[in-house]
């Protein structure tokens, strides 16, 4: 009996090591990809020049800078944009990876729950009517942020009256999504054509606002929320086994569900208010991760974040360079790169993850 148990534990350790290995591979992949991506762009800047700029910024006294134009392109455009795409992909994928088990539904994501539509509605108000909570360059962002949070709070408050069941949350979310989409459409219908175009452009999503300024807002939220979600991943495993089962295992299901939804919504709102509705990554990145490494949330949450980061930044690089000088909207590109991969994995996957 003892030998059997020792063997069993060995198998388990092996399985664990495979998952850790997958995460390490992803991190290396992101670093390699990032270092290549900063050398590619519409402007012809050599690899050496790019790295000289970076070294100059890290060690200003040792390495002299190159031409200041080149420095600006690398330091103020390329690097923050890549960092934004990585961070946004990371955040949205984790938000999706949390929402799916919390609502015990493989289709849950910021998109299906209407959080994106709420953000779009808020953005449309700002763009079309010029009415916003904030002034200046933030007027669209602030509206999008507030309206996406409003959406998730309506979902939480209404579903609470029905006992905070996953079903009620999803149905209310889908209903709200349609309501906000309809509201946005009505506004577009009566708006000037340039405003309509602007709203459409916003809805498709773009990483062009990926600056150091943007990162200053997204990064602190991510650094607080994501470790919290990773800590809660163990309870998520219990919740996905069913509410009664989770309660019997000592989890305060209702409270945990609400807290996790609030945190996931906050991350979503913070990111999509800068980038527009690119929630699709939040649906597929967690599934891709589960198909590869199984459904243990202690693994899925961090790994899905990395998959999302890689997928979104890769899509953005393709979107910027494939039809140069035209930049394809990132939301569109994510679908073009993500969907084939997603379907390939669904067809190929041996595991029944859903």
């Amino acid at each position: 009996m003892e030998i059997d148990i020792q063997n069993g534990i060995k198998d388990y350790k092996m399985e664990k090591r495979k998952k850790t290995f997958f995460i390490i591979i992803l991190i290396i992949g992101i670093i390699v990809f990032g270092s290549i991506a900063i050398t590619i762009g519409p402007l012809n800047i050599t690899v050496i020049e790019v790295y000289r700029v970076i070294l100059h910024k890290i060690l200003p006294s040792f390495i002299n800078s190159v031409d200041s134009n080149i420095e600006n392109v690398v330091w103020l455009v390329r690097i923050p944009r890549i960092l934004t795409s990585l961070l946004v992909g990371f955040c949205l994928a984790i938000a999706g990876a949390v929402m799916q088990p919390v609502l015990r539904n493989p289709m849950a994501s910021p998109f299906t729950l209407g959080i994106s539509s709420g953000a779009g509605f808020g953005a449309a108000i700002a763009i079309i009517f010029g009415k916003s909570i904030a002034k200046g360059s933030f007027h669209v962002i602030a509206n999008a942020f507030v309206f996406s949070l409003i959406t998730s709070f309506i979902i939480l408050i209404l579903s609470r009256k029905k006992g905070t069941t996953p079903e009620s949350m999803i149905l209310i979310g889908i209903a709200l999504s349609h309501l906000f989409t309809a509201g946005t459409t009505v506004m577009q219908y009566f708006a000037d054509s340039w405003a309509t175009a602007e709203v459409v452009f916003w809805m498709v999503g773009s990483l062009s606002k990926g600056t150091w300024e943007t990162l200053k807002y997204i990064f602190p939220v991510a650094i607080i929320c994501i470790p919290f979600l990773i800590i809660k991943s163990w309870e998520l495993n219990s919740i996905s086994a069913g509410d009664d089962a989770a309660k019997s295992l000592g989890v305060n299901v209702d409270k945990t569900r609400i807290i996790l939804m609030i945190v996931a919504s906050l991350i979503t709102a913070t990111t999509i208010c800068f980038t527009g509705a690119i929630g699709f990554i939040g649906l597929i990145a967690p599934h891709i991760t589960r198909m590869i490494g199984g459904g243990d949330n202690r693994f899925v949450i961090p790994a899905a974040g990395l998959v999302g980061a890689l997928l979104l930044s890769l899509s953005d690089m393709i979107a910027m360079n494939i039809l140069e000088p035209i930049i394809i909207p990132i939301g569109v590109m994510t679908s073009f790169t993500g969907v084939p991969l997603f379907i390939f994995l669904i067809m190929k996957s041996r595991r029944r993850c859903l």
Partner: protein
Amino acid sequence: MFIIKIQIKDVEFGYSKNKVLDGISINIDKGECVSILGPNGTGKSTLIKCIDGLLKPQKGTIKINGEDVQKIKREKLATQLGYVAQSCNSAFSLTVFDMVLLGRSPYIKWKSSKSDELKVFKALKKLNIEDIAMKNFNELSGGQQQKVIIARALAQETEILLLDEATSNLDIRHQLEVMYIIKKLTKEENITAVMIVHDLNIAARFSDKILIMKNGKINKAGIPEKVLTKENISDVYGVEVDISRIEKKPCVIPLRTKCI
């Protein structure tokens, strides 16, 4: 000397107007293996859920070790009561090992220790399913899944086990196996088991005490020999049966439904 483990007093529970539980009072002693029998829809599962604190009775109290279940924190309750639900499907698949490791939840917050892992394997071993430890839970047969959930409850190391039709999905061999394991736990480790069983003969064979429920009330309670009689079964199920004795235990042979 008997120690009262579960004390149920005047419990009433209902959804809107109809009462599902209508004045249930019973004491269950430590180390007892108790089966709840009764037709469908008489409130057996509801009673189990009330004992586990998942449902709150409108009237009456349920005490575990003298403490009101409704007043015990869920985390603490999880170290005292293990619950095996009627059916379990996980939306996202975990491996069998991770599923059973969830049973250690009340004791771990985020990282499982080596002793937790050992306990998981011991629980798997008890149910003879250690060979499927690395399989995906959702890929298993219904019977195997049921065994995994029972293993999870064992890994929880509680003094009380509540099983809601835990053996209904199993074939006869696995049924006997699981019932034998549960019986052994009650005898060797003084664990109290309360289970809903549909098979009268399985209940007769393995229980110390049988409760028969009808219309939200406990109709009969006592040792199998006393409770499983022609008259009682006819009264509760409306079925005519013959009863013989095999290895000293009553054996129920169904004959026909009673004409109304």
